């Protein structure tokens, strides 16, 4: 796709490149074409529906809606709070997983008894389905009566916190961080291990303390790995959904409604396909804005 236009350029080096590009088309085309279809066909349908009155459970509503669906969505106070919640959710989880992941990566880089097993335990949450994690945290861990955490709190004489109604968004951030921290550890640990031991020894010889060497040697070395973590996590965190519907269904009130959940509420609770589609279109626009900034600030991996 990107190689279709081969501008003839003078000079041997460029000429060779051009001639090469011609043959690369069949290789890249399948993926790009399929992805194009995948994103364009539903996109066009979504665009189309977003200008229609279309409610699954009320077929009497039909016809062209103009910008009604958009106006309805953008003037909804819940829409703006859902944007803020999305931001807090993504930012909070990124902060916890990147900071925690870096520290844990350094910790598990140290040699200690049973390190291999301890590492396996730490990365385990990443393999657990989001639905299951949410169910386990909600019912077995944080339940204000039967939950293990509540029992521990009661054991030390504290009234158990009712997590999902007192600090709902924070609790969701916590659960999602639990799922993604292992991913950050996995990647950052790999990066820490690839750090030259000689380099670190040299730093130590120069009299740099552990903290100084962390900030001046380890952290710069991890920059690129952190970029990868942020990028991959961001992609998934923007569309967090399972954890929310299982634990709080977006509430209480709209305390944990993010954009993905808001669209869900429109499309599958209200069965308002028009409104849901308008939400989808707005999400696509926002996603592209985010992707743009993301790449500008982090993804040196994308440089070509």
């Amino acid at each position, binding site marked *: 796709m990107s190689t279709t236009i081969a501008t003839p350029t003078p000079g041997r080096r460029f000429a060779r490149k051009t001639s090469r590009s011609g043959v690369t088309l069949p290789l890249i085309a399948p993926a790009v074409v399929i992805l194009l279809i995948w994103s364009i066909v539903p996109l066009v349908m979504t665009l189309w529906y977003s200008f229609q009155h279309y409610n699954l459970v009320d*077929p009497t509503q039909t016809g062209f809606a103009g910008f009604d669906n958009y106006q309805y969505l953008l003037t909804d106070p819940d829409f703006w709070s859902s944007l803020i919640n999305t931001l807090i959710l993504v930012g909070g989880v990124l902060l916890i997983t990147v900071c925690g992941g870096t520290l844990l990566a350094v910790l598990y880089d140290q040699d200690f008894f049973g390190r291999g097993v301890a590492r396996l335990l730490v990365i385990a949450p990443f393999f657990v389905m989001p639905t299951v994690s949410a169910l386990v945290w909600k019912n077995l861990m944080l339940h204000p009566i039967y939950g293990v955490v509540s029992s521990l709190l009661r054991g030390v004489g504290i009234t158990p916190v009712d997590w999902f109604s007192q600090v709902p968004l924070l609790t969701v951030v916590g659960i999602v961080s639990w799922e993604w921290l292992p991913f950050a550890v996995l990647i950052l640990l790999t990066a820490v291990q690839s750090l030259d031991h000689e380099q670190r020894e040299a730093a130590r010889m120069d009299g740099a303390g552990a903290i100084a060497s962390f900030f001046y040697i380890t952290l710069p070395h991890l920059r690129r790995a952190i970029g990868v973590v942020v990028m991959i996590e961001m992609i998934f965190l923007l569309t967090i959904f399972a954890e929310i519907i299982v634990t709080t269904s977006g509430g209480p009130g709209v305390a944990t409604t993010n954009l993905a959940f808001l669209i869900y509420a429109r499309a599958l*609770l209200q069965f308002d396909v028009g409104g849901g589609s308008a939400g989808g279109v707005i999400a696509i626009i926002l996603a592209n804005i985010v992707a743009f900034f993301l790449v500008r600030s982090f993804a040196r991996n994308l440089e070509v």
Partner: protein
Amino acid sequence: MRLSACTFAVLLGGSSLSAFPAAARADTTLTIATVNNGDMVVMQKLSPEFERTHPGIHLNWVVLEENVLRQRVTTDIATRAGQFDIMTIGNYEVPIWSKQNWLHPITPAAGYDADDLIKPVRQGLTYKGKLYALPFYAESAMTYYRTDLFKHAGLTMPAAPTYQQIREFADKINDPSHQIYGMCLRGKPGWGENIAYFTSLLNTFGGQWFDMTWHPMLDSKPWHAAVNYYDGILKADGPPGATSNGFNENLALFASGHCGMWIDSTVASGLLYDKKQSQVSDTVGFAPIPKGPYGRGPTWLWSWNLAIPASSKQIDAAESFVTWATSKEYIALVAKQNGWVAVPPGTRASTYANPEYQKAAPFASFVEKAIETADPNGQTAGPRPYRGAQFVDIPQFQAIGTQVGQTLAGTLSGQQSVDLALHAAQASTTRTMRQSGYLK
């Protein structure tokens, strides 16, 4: 690339071949979507009996939790995708869907004895004189309480309690240090969860959802009174985490001895009296649903029903299963396998006339009366353009109810004051009603 092309073909071919195992058979396979409630799980377990007596019909079960089920079947039926031959739906959906011609009308044979179906339940499933679904179980609402706790506190439950009395009782028996909470009520947001209970509370407090011109009435006085009562009793005497408790969670709480009182569906009685599922089977007492200042109002009626989508290609076979699973014979089969206390309640007069059921289920006549006299079309304090006791029978209610349910949960968790919350809920409901064309 040759290798990969082969793999590709094999993979696609392989998976699409295996995707239609049933197509090769001459037999009929029915796909049944149902909710994961106890009574339906029993139906699934007993269904081999149906397959035995109906050779050539195979059953394929899709058991899902309520919310997922509802979203699956609604998407399916509204797009006429035809993935299901039998759907488990509520009496909220039946009239709305039959009006759209989405359901296949059912005319049961004489032996089925449709007149045996309890009247309000049958009426709820009838549209223009035809039955569009058959009831699997039906419920009204009642008050459960712990006789031991009441005795200990020197209280007696009156024959017709008022909400004012209930509040006093709850305050007295509340004992959080032993994790016994005076009152458990639905707090989980959702039109079928906290809003179902709350709407019935609202009715008896003299409130209603809409006036005759479909203007929402959420900022009216009765709404304030009802929300204040609801928040007040749950904040003072409710279990922690009330905003995540729906019917199932409260049932678990009551059955494990954490609730002093609970106002909810009559269907819980069979489960609370069942020694296998309840630790309080000896000490559970029951009373009618309490009355508020208005006193009258429509009364709770819900049924889970089996319906056949018009898009099903195996209507005859589906009909034979639906009539089997809601028949007297099926009820007798459950009784034989699991005991009379476990039969699906609320649907048939013959169940309640059965002396064995009366013996096994001391609550039987009480529940029967509650369902027989249930009047979902009863008079609210002001005239209303809609029907339903714990819901409003318009398609938009799922969305409105769930959103207001969230707002209610927001006031309960203390995130918003009642005034602000009701003001916001009024605004959002007005928006939805305007968007869907009820208001100009």
